[in-house]
């Protein structure tokens, strides 16, 4: 069984930590530190297996790691896993990341830890290998991403499509009523109102007073002097 999967960079900064056995947070950090110290002092031309870490599992466990450019991928496993097999598994993991992020680098892992976790969850579950077929993993991940996108869509997607059309003219009122919706304001920049915008203001106001729309502010209104 895989006890933990740790990814950290050449300076020991963690980039991904996943424990399949419960440890309190302090101990987790200690394990990362110890593992880093053990792994980082090894040359590149020595074998990828390491024994003697004291924190997880004692003598029954091994550290199996691979070093890619700036990152160490370390799997802590017990004796029931094949050492060479785990090496292959690390390779599959990294290749999958590479396909997901297109030329994966440390920055991808930093800014998308959640995504890396999702990918890992399709590869390993509860400390056991779940799926090693890369295209299957990628397909599932993209399906789930699509599902997420669909949800954030709906209202938001439509409003985002043409927020500026609101500013265009007196037709704003009709557009607004057509949307019949939430006008969400994220940021109001320079609420400078000139003559051309009075109409808009009026229509917004009328809509407000008619209680035909509810206001939750999310989208950007640009009141711009140049917009006629």
């Amino acid at each position, binding site marked *: 069984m895989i006890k933990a999967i740790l990814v950290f960079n050449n300076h020991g900064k963690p980039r991904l930590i996943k424990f399949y056995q419960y440890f309190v947070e302090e101990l987790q950090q200690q394990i990362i530190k110890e593992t880093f110290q053990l792994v980082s002092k090894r040359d590149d031309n020595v074998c990828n297996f390491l024994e003697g870490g004291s924190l997880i599992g004692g003598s029954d466990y091994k550290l199996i790691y691979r070093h890619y450019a700036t990152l160490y991928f370390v799997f802590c496993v017990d004796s029931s896993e094949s050492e060479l097999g785990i090496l292959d598994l690390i390779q599959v993991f990294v290749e999958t990341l590479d396909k997901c992020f297109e030329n994966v680098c440390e920055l991808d892992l930093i800014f998308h830890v959640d995504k890396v976790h999702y990918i890992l969850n399709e590869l390993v579950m509860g400390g056991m*290998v779940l799926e090693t077929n890369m295209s299957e993993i990628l397909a599932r991940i993209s399906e789930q991403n699509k599902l997420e996108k669909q949800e954030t869509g709906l209202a938001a997607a439509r409003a985002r499509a043409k927020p500026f059309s609101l500013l265009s003219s007196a037709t704003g009122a009709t557009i607004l009523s057509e949307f019949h919706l939430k006008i969400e304001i994220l940021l109001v920049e320079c609420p400078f109102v000139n003559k051309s915008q009075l109409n808009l203001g009026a229509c917004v106001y009328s809509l407000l007073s008619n209680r035909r729309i509810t206001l939750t502010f999310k989208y950007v209104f640009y009141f711009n002097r140049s917009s006629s």
Partner: protein
Amino acid sequence: MNPTDHGFNPAFNMAVIKEVFNEALERVRTPTPMRLRDLIRQIRAARTAAEERGVINKECAYIRSTFREEDSVWRCRNIAKLLYIHMLGYPAHFGQLECLKLIASPRFTDKRIGYLGAMLLLDERQDVHLLITNCLKNDLNSSTQFVVGLALCTLGAIASPEMSRDLAGEVERLMKSPNAYVRKKAALCAYRIILKVPELMEIFLPATRSLLSEKNHGVLITGVSLITEMCENSVDTLQHFKKIVPNLVRILKNLILAGYSPEHDVSGVSDPFLQVKILRLLRILGKNDVEASEAMNDILAQVATNTETTKNVGNTILYETVLSIMDIRSESGLRVLAINILGRFLLNNDKNIRYVALNTLLKTVHVDTSAVQRHRTTILECLKDPDVSIRRRALELSFALVNANNIKAMMKELLTFLEKADPEFKEMASSRIVLAAERYSPSIKWHLDTLLSVLIAAGNYIRDDVVSNVIQLMTANPSQQSYMVGQLWSALENDNSDRQPLIQIATWCIGEFGDMLLSPDSNVQISETEVIAVYHRLLTSPQNSPITKQYCLTSLTKLSTRFQHPDTHKIQELIESFGSHVQMELQQRGVEYSQLFGKYAYLRNGLLERMPALEITKPSTNTHNGSVSQDADEEESVSPAENQSNSNALLVLLGGDTGDNDIIKPPAKAPSLDTNQDLLDLLGGLDSGMDSISEKPIDLKLNNDSSIQNNNNILSMINSTPDYLAEPLPITPQTRDTTVYDKGGLRIDFSSQKAADVPNTTSINVSAHNTTATDFTEFVFQAAVPRTFQLKLLPPSGTIITADGGTVTQILRVTTPTPAPVRMRIRKLTTSLPTVFNDNLTFCGASNFSPD
């Protein structure tokens, strides 16, 4: 006022609109939380750890406050940030409940991050688990496969026994789901549940079998993992699954024979992960089972011969195959094939492969030693590998391969290794070399030479028991003494890295056999002054430990009697310089030994005679000099013949333990006069110094004024009883009478008798006489012995000793574990002795009986 009623009023509308927007601005601007991306940037921009902490603390405080406000819009983002913060090692447990809220949300986005947070943040608190169980149950019944997948994945990661029990039914149902994505996750979930609650295995059994008839490799691999776990868990299940061997063989065959399939191909091998898992399961099923092994032989041979070995994956499978062949009852031909594969592995350029080869050979060496012996040279080569993991494996394997035939050749290599080895290896390697040498040594000379090489090569990393072992070996072999003492002398002379064990052994031997060193037929030609000069260097070097110096001092004292024309003056000067040493032990030694050059010079020859040959005991692995206190060490240097376990027991006794087992109260009505205090006193004075004299069968009459106060050290012994040492009393083998106490009119005599039927039991007849004119009332006699002894006090003849020659007698039976001198501490309590004795109720005396 409704503006629509009044037509268009620009000014008015302007104001209202402004108000509306300002309000919006107010609402929106303050709570917009920082994006994850920006937080990460800020953290990365921090130059110092303190700065980073500042950024994170500020953000955490903010996240906490939003959690309080029930602001649901940004919960996702906040949890994502919190997970990042958690990864960096900052506390993030306050996000647990928010994760649960996200899980309960109907949106997939929320659930996804919520479950991720739950997997990472949840601890083993019961209440949170209770809450999440319900959410999991709902989601396991969801119609979206990914929601089910998330729930299964989370359950697999954080299942507690309670959750396992509650949700096992759902998981079992999902194992039969038509959707492969759900099925494989359910299988692994079942695996985790069985890990937590083995009793639940039953309900998964039927669904598990059908997993093997799958086409989908994900389901197959998880199914095989599940079965493996079940088989390891119970013997019954193992029997149950013996039936599936043909199925597994068929799957494996298909994998090998199937041509290229792009989905599962990993550098030219079809799904190595699944192959490895199946091979592993076959190993468990075929272990000690001839029939099952029979069914596997063919396929194992096929895998072993057909697998492409140019890539790592191929070797992975071969490695697993070899392990399986070795574990099951395979044909002998197959075993030869397996060992040959390992031999090829050993020559592989890839370090990883060499490592696993060594590892596997280590596992198989006990099964088939001769086959592994063939690769001995390669294994010894691996001792020189720069990789520490490989060296460690090779070392272990080398020790496993040592036997009487190859000991000489192997030892040469091992000693070379030991010389260059890292400190972490030295202790282990040296003690195993010593063991191997002891077991297989072809001759005593070779054995001693090897030990000397180890002493030189391993330096201070040698375990302490080696020192006493070498000394024992030296004393037991007079033929080698002359040769070895010369060797040790050269080693000592050339030693410039302060190897303590070497110095200890060398000085012991030179002290003991100094005459041989200087005899004309010795292999080194040196003068006495040279020897003394070396001792001077050793004794004054700050690098040497006090224990080593104790060895040196004793040795030097002995040398004064070994040399033909000793420069006693110089030796004496050196020893006396220790009379004011800061180290108490050394000082004591300095003072005591200098007595042997002055007032008691006539004692020196007798006292410093050569030690008798030591009995070679079986090397006990847990006897460390260091673990016994310094007293014991010191003592050993004076009289190494002393059995160490005895002194150990004494030390235990000295530890101030007031337990009742240390003292045995007589069965008579003993007046308990603040016994604890008394016991402490009673034990307090017992000093291990007594041991050093106890081996000589002398009867020691206690000196009235000194023995109560002093430490019974050697010096006092010399002071008080010189005549006994000079000419030991003749010993009556069966019965001897001793007066152990005579003071204030009370005389206590011991007469010891060895019981004929029980060899290690001594009966002591205690008789107390009253020579005063008053009666002693409530007289109680007590005795204590070290823990290793057994003491039985029979009832006394009375508690009152009448005046003018009244006598009370009592019998003591002491049983010792080995035929050893009896040591004990006695005291007597009476209420009617003169005041001085009432004050000093505790009388510390000791008596030595040697029944043999």
